[in-house]
């Protein structure tokens, strides 16, 4: 009797603690939401605008899921933005049936791929880039910061080379509608497919982190890698999987970025790696590793999108938005410190 009571108390304590971890970011989200609702009630709260924001959030949020895994494991991935651009270029090229400029001597052209196949091609490209990061980090025992700083340039250059430094214009396909406003006959979907995909991936990441061995290993590796080794955790294999998943998420984000632009632009998603990292950190993850959550990162992304959108609606220019986002990042980390005292 008393024992089960104790168990319940322990459970309540853990739930409360978990809620508290989300609480900070949630309060932040509520604050910016209410603020802009008051400042720009007509425009910010318009249904159209409320439906626009998740569409804007999708790319960053999905990339942030991969980054969440990587940051909790104590790593970092600076190549996310370049990976998104490369993947979107790959999708565009596959849809056009155009081979990369530097491979023209080998294969001048081929039959355009179907939209689905092209999307999977883009995701596979992201996955490969992630595995490359993971292999370099575990194989050469280099710091993730340096490796991904290198691949950030490498992948961006590759994207430009593949597209011959131009934007690739593929014929319109169904992929373009992933993040578009729903047509009236699609109203039953409630949200565009790309937004559903984002929610699905957030849920999958949350479950992975909490309910699988790999998920717990991610926390253990980030918290203390020596302990992880001592306990027989295959640290190198796990890291390869983590960076691979991170790359795959960036690939999916790349497909959505392509869908958003409807073109393959090798210079797209500039500085996205910092937006993605900021979203994860605002969401309560620690860059030292061992802490963070999928829901937190989703909330972090939402805060950034709400701020960006709200500033426009209130009529503030881009520089205001950058200042406010910067302040929020510092505040989030400072509040996190205070809470943990």
């Amino acid at each position, binding site marked *: 009797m008393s024992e089960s009571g104790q168990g319940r108390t322990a*459970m309540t*304590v853990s739930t409360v603690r978990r809620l508290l971890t989300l609480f900070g970011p949630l309060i932040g989200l509520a604050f910016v939401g209410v603020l802009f609702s008051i400042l720009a009630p007509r425009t910010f709260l318009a249904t159209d605008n409320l439906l626009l924001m998740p569409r804007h959030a999708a790319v960053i949020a999905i990339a942030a899921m991969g980054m969440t895994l990587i940051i909790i494991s104590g790593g970092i991935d600076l190549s996310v933005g370049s990976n998104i651009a490369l993947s979107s270029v790959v999708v565009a090229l596959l849809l056009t049936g155009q081979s990369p400029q530097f491979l023209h001597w080998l294969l001048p052209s081929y039959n355009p791929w179907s939209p689905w196949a092209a999307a999977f091609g883009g995701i596979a490209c992201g996955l490969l880039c992630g595995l490359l990061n993971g292999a370099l980090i575990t194989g050469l025992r280099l710091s993730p910061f340096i490796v991904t700083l290198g691949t950030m340039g490498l992948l961006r250059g590759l994207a430009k080379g593949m597209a011959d430094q131009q934007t690739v214009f593929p014929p319109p396909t169904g992929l373009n509608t992933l993040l578009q406003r729903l047509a009236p006959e699609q109203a039953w979907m409630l949200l565009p497919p790309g937004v559903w995909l984002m929610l699905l991936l957030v849920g999958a990441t949350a479950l992975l982190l909490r309910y699988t061995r790999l998920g717990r290993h991610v926390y253990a590796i980030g918290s203390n890698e*020596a302990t992880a080794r001592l306990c027989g955790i295959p640290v190198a294999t796990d890291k390869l999987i983590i960076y691979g998943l991170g790359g795959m998420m960036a690939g999916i984000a790349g497909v959505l970025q392509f869908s958003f632009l409807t073109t393959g632009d090798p210079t797209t998603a500039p500085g996205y790696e910092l937006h993605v990292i900021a979203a994860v950190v605002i969401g309560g993850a620690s860059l030292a590793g061992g802490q963070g959550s999928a829901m937190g990162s989703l909330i972090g992304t939402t805060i950034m999108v709400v701020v960006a959108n709200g500033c426009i609606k209130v009529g503030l220019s881009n520089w205001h938005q950058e200042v406010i986002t910067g302040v929020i990042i510092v505040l989030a980390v400072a509040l996190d410190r205070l809470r943990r005292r």
Partner: protein
Amino acid sequence: MSDKPRLQMTDIHKRFGPTVALDGVSLSVDSGQVLALVGENGAGKSTLVKILSGAYRADRGAMWLDGQPYQPRHPLEGRRAGVAMIYQELSLAPDLSVLENIVLGAEPHWGPWVRWRLARERAAEALRRVGRPDLHLNRLVGQLSPAEQQLVEIARALAGHCRVLVLDEPTSSLTAADIERLFQLVGQLRDQGEAIIYISHFLEEIQAISDHYAVLRDGRGVGGGRTAEATIEGIIGLMVGRAVEDLYPRSERVAGDVVLAVEGLSGKVRLRQAGFALRRGEVLGIAGLVGAGRTELLRCLLGLDAVQQGQVRLALLAGQPLREAAHDSPRARWQAGLGMVSEDRTQEGLALNLSLSDNLTLSRLPFFTSPASQRRASGTWIQRLAIRCAGPDQPMRDLSGGNQQKVALARLLHHDVDVLLLDEPTRGIDVASKAQIYQLIDELALRGCAVLMVSSYLPELLGVCDRIAVMCRGVLGAARPAAELSEHAIMREAIGATELAEGEAA
């Protein structure tokens, strides 16, 4: 000199939320005196010392230095007033030179310029006082041995004209010879009129070094007096609040089949041609100095370090033939029933910011798991091992050293390993937890587990183990029954004195 004590602390109270850490502790140290501060982990020693240093402020109570009220608001103020702390973990900058470290934070200066000539003089004087005038001032501290680094830290305290020197578990990372030298130094400093507070779990050290002792239990001073008039049993009795009848329980054990056979095992560093056989129901001890290669042996056995040559053979189930496993990964070893407790609880043994249940179940998680199942598994062990905690979700960081170590051991029990590799399993933990761990080792041996235990604490090895092998400079000696060995004999072998004697005879 005044007749006032150098340091006096009276009626110190300190609370952390609902927990009373100190409940009216008083002590005093005279100049030219060594006071030993004794107590289990959690008894309040570190809180008391942190109040002395200025890291914490007392809720109530007063402190005097040479009769002057002393109320440090932060550690820097404590240091300026002449209270110097030497912690277990040294606080030196490894990339700076000996000289820079000694004068760090108190550089003699003229405006923005450091007066290096004066600094050198002061540093040289301090090194002379710690008995190492030969230590070159320009050497980088990171290149020195742990013992030398500790001397640099003591020299820093002396250069700052300290009035009270606090040594917190100073011997935990030193070799026996260095410990001997440290004791000599403490004696010299005492004779030079320093007041020294010495904190240690090793009661033998306290007997060797201190003039007076004070015992803390549950935040209260429960006794003290002249060390010469006290017995170890008496001090332990004060620490745990009851008489310790039998610290080392030992049932009738029957050695069974060989589960782990090692032949000619060499690692990349230190370890050379080690060989032994470990049987079920047996506790085999490995003695030796720090740095002799004992940890390297265990790490090779678990697959954490690469095996250069030699054989490690394991039997999975009772009665099965031994299987070659020298190049398995740690994961494969765990699956084969081998588990290890690290000597370094905080850096390697445990992930301190994860929860107790995450730490306990880490080596044995199913592909799909859940917080609830992890919690359930941990709950059992918390009860079985009487781990003091708020619950399975409490972060590891918040537990006391003894309870942390119990979790590290519980991980092996939860994994249900057959062979336990224990590296210094009782280092830095309180006597009550030690007794529980000895009890547990005995129970495991009775159940048919095999235990390989590395320890630098000889009474413990002699009390717990069936056989003991001594390691010296990477070479493992033959295992002999513990009953035939004495501390003296083990120490001779550990420092290589037997080889020397034989060499001279030949």
